[in-house]
Every structure is written in C-alpha cells, then in structure tokens.
C-alpha cells in the first residue's frame, strides 16, 4: 500500500488518439474519503481519464495509482478495489436486477449464497427490491442507473468512479442518484466523479478540478473557485424596455467587462469588482436619469461563469503565445 494518503493519484497523464491529444498531462490527487469533481465540457478528457484510472485504457505517459496500486503494473489489484459507473448503464438488459447483481457478485468471486444475499441487500438499499423478475430493459432510466450504482458497490469498494452519473436522467432520477452518492461519501467512500453540470460538481464535491482540452486548468473547493474570480455580478431589471440602452450605459460605467443586455427580460447583467460601491453608484445614476428599475441585485458568480472565464483566459493566453 502507498503511504501517500491518497486514494487516487495521477501525475502527468498523457494519451493520444492518432493526431489528437486527448490528455495533455493531467495531474490529480484525491485524498481518502473525499469527493473530487472532474468538471469540463464534452471532449475535455474526462471519460478518458476515468477509463485510464479504472484500467480500461492504456496511457502513453505519466503515472497513476489507485487505492495504493500502480494502474499499469497491477491492474487486477486495482480492479478489486474500485467500482465504476460508466456513462451508459453497464448492466445486462436481458436479465432481472437480482440476476444482474448475483452475476456480478459471482464474478467478484463471492460464493453463490453470498452473491444472492448481497444482491438482495443492494436491491433493498436502492429501492429496487420490488422489481422481481422484470428485465432491466423495462427499467426507467433512474432505476437502471441505480442498479448500475448498486452493481458497482457489491464489494463495497473503497474508491468509486462515476462517469457523468446523471447524464440523461430526469430531475427526479438525478436527485435519487445524488442522494445515493452523498450517502456513500458520508460513509467514507472516496469518489471521483465527472460531470459537465456545474451545479452537480458544486453540490457533490469537496474539491473540483476544472479540465479543458486534456489539462487541469484550475482546482480548489467550489467556494475557492468562485472566490478566484474576485468579482460579483450586478443585475438590473428596468420597467420600460426603451430605457435599456441608457441603463446599460450607466451599468457599463462601473462594470469590469461589457454589460450583457437581455432585451426580452429587460435585464442588464455585468461583473463588478467593488460590489457595494458599484451598487450605490448604479442606484444613484439611475435615479438621476429618471430610469425606473423593477429590481436591482448583486449575486456571486455561478460556476458556469467561473468556468467560462477561466477557459477564456486560457485560450487568450494560448493565442498570445501562438
């Protein structure tokens, strides 16, 4: 076992598919018992990273350890310590939920009776006990994903990988899966989850690694990442759409970037630095110009805005370098 105290560690992971560099040197460190959210857009390298860490893909360069074992040298030992929930539910469609879990239990080398007992326990825990002989092909999306999660927990693995665990689920299914993940995290399971939903990373993770184009571009707790932007947003709703240009000009005076105007909703939004001072200035200037406001509010940035700002910075740096 490694003595680093990390459940997952990746150093400089690189992976090419032909000409395309999928991973350009990913570094990750997930302490035992924490939840890391790997957040990024489609094609950022999230799935490739998960597949490498779960021994499903080879990688070209770098080093990775999971649960203290080298992914490249001891894949079988890694496999007996991890659970994986992939993007599409990895369960047998023809068989029932109970048959699926018993099958996977047997393949984890539990004896027949233990495999069946464990299957019953997990079906109960994930609210699938009444599915009986119903084949998985007739399950709802949420039920399927819960079965998938249950299948990953047969050996109660210390490290769990979840690749976009709520993709394609309706809000109810998503809440069910979130609840299950929270319970696992509370019970001490180390979780590495990928998502392109910023809210999801915010809700579930202790730490977030933002990745884009195969690299980690920022990391920290959700609060830290939001604070990194060092700016708040001011939003002004005007009563009369005709006053939008004048109001936008006023907001623009205090903003640190171009104000966005949503004509349909009569909203002007802009990032500001000295938020309280900016708010006072805007209120006074609107009064002087006799523009009637329905609402004026200050808010913290969303992770979306953090993400877009950080990736935009990256791109402009690259363009300058090029």
């Amino acid at each position: 076992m490694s003595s680093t105290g990390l459940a997952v560690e990746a150093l400089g992971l690189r992976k090419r598919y032909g000409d395309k560099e999928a991973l350009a040197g990913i570094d990750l460190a997930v302490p035992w018992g924490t939840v890391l959210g790997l957040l990024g857009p489609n094609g950022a390298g999230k799935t490739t990273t998960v597949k490498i860490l779960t021994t499903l893909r080879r990688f070209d360069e770098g080093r990775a350890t999971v649960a203290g074992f080298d992914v490249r040298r001891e894949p079988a030992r890694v496999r007996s310590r991890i659970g994986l929930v992939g993007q599409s539910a990895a369960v047998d469609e023809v068989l029932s939920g109970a048959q699926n879990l018993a099958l996977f239990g047997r393949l984890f080398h539990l004896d027949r009776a233990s495999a069946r007992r464990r299957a019953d326990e997990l079906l109960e825990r994930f609210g699938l006990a009444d599915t009986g002989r119903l084949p998985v092909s007739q399950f709802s999306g949420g039920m399927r994903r819960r079965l998938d999660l249950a299948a990953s927990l047969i050996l109660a693995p210390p490290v769990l990988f979840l690749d976009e665990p709520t993709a394609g689920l309706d809000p109810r299914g998503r809440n069910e899966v979130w609840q299950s993940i929270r319970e696992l995290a509370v019970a001490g399971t180390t979780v590495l989850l990928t998502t392109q939903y910023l809210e999801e990373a915010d809700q579930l993770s202790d730490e977030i690694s933002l990745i884009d184009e195969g690299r980690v571009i920022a990391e920290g707790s959700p609060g830290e990442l939001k604070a990194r932007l060092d700016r708040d947003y001011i939003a002004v709703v005007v009563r009369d759409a005709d006053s939008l240009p004048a109001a936008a000009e006023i907001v623009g005076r205090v903003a640190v970037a171009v104000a966005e105007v949503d004509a349909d909703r009569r909203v002007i939004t802009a990032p500001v630095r000295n938020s309280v001072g900016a708010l006072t200035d805007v209120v006074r200037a609107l009064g002087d110009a006799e523009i009637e406001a329905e609402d004026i509010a200050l808010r913290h940035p969303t992770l979306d805005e953090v993400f877009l700002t950080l990736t935009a910075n990256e791109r402009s740096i690259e363009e300058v370098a090029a």
Partner: protein
Amino acid sequence: MTTRVEVPDGPSARVRWALTDSWTMTERALAHWARQPWLVFMGIAFPLLILAMFLYLFGGGMTVPGGGEYRDFIVPGVFAVTMFFGVEATMTAVNADAARGVTERFRSMPMAPSATVAGRALADLLFSLLLLVILIGAGLLVGWNWHSGLGNAMHAFALLVLLRFAFIWVGIYLGLLVKGPEGIATVQVLVWPFVALSSVFTSPEHMPNWLGTIAEWNPVSTTLHASRELFGNPGATGSSWAAEHAELLAFAWPLAMIAVFFPLSVRAYRALGY
C-alpha cells in the same frame, strides 16, 4: 460490508478463477436463453427447415454421387451445415455483447479476461450438442440411419462437434472484429457461398474442376466426408488428396482453426476499447 477478494497469486489459483468465471459466464448465456425462448426456438427450427427443404423440395432432382439414397446423403450434410452455421449465432451474440455497456463492467472487474469468451464458447457448444441430438432424432424419423455401427457413428458425431467448436472461435473472433450491423450482414451473406462450395448439398465432382478442389478442401467438406464414411452413408467420394485424407483433415482443420482463433479472440477481447 467490506469484502475483499484478493487476486490469486499462484498459477493454479488463477486457473481456478478462470474456470469458475467461465462457468459463471456460461450460466449467464443460459439465463439469456431461458429468458428469450423464441431465440432458442428459431435456432432449432432453422436447421429442421433446411433438412425439410432439401429432403422434400430439392431432393427429387438430386443424384447421389456413387449411388444411394439422397436422404442418407443429405442428413449428415445438414448435421455439418448446422455445426457451421453456428458461426453466425456466436458472432452475433459476441458482437451485440461487445457493444453493450455491460462488457465495460466485465473489463473493470477482477475477473479472468479469458472468461468472457470461454463462457460464450462453452454455452454455444452446449447448445450445439442439443441441436445435434434433435437433428439426429429428426434424421432417424425421416428414415436416415448409420450403417457401420454405433461406435463409428459416435466417432462421426464427435468430429461434427469438434468442427462446431472450431467455428465457435472463428465466430467469437469475427464478433469482436466486425463493427456494427453492416459487418454482421456481410458475414451472414458470405456463409452461403461458403457452404455452397462444399460437399453438403451436392458433390464437388459436379463442380468445375478448380471449384471442386476448393470445395473438397473446405473444412466443412472434410469433416462431412469423414462423417459420411463413418456413418456408412453415400457421398464420400472424390479422388483429391483432401478427399482421400478426409479423416486426418477432419482433425487437423478444426485444431488448426482453434490454434489460430482462440488466441486471436482473447487478444481482441483484451484490446476492446484500447
């Protein structure tokens, strides 16, 4: 609950895991059939239809090389062609499975990597034994029989099962190799000229010279030639080297095919997704 099942260290423990995992995967395939009885029904109905078609529709216009009853000629032919057509069922099942998310789970689990393909091979072998028993029953019903003793007949059945086992590995490899329905459809079309170019339905002696030679070397033909001889059924004629050494080739061909396609299949399975 924290259960840790350690990866076995010694080679004998590894073999034990490979065997139990293979059997678990065989049980999975059997459970699939139990839940999809129409698939099993179609698998059984197809060779019976071929038997009926050749016996009652085409049989009247056929002459048996060297003389004899057409039904004594065609029944072993249907045995052989059924063993060969299994390649399609195996390929389709393997291909569908490889495309499913569940294969990704198998690969992320601490199970023996060879078990997925070995389990499939064993399940398909069990099914072809069932098929062969049903076909023997059907053959006896329509008046076919063996004429050289039960021992020789059993020997012939064993050769037919060996042929099926060899084609299972071809099927597994093709199933892992081809991508999507176009690949499957291509193979489904190509199996027909493959059996037409054999001694199943007609004698290679009736074919143009060079085509007849290919037909006599066809592994389906060599096994069938040996089986017809062992059954004491007509049609085991021909003077090429392949025809005269059919019994040797009925062993050599399948063994060579297994030696090539078993390692290729395991390798292709491991390389899935890389």
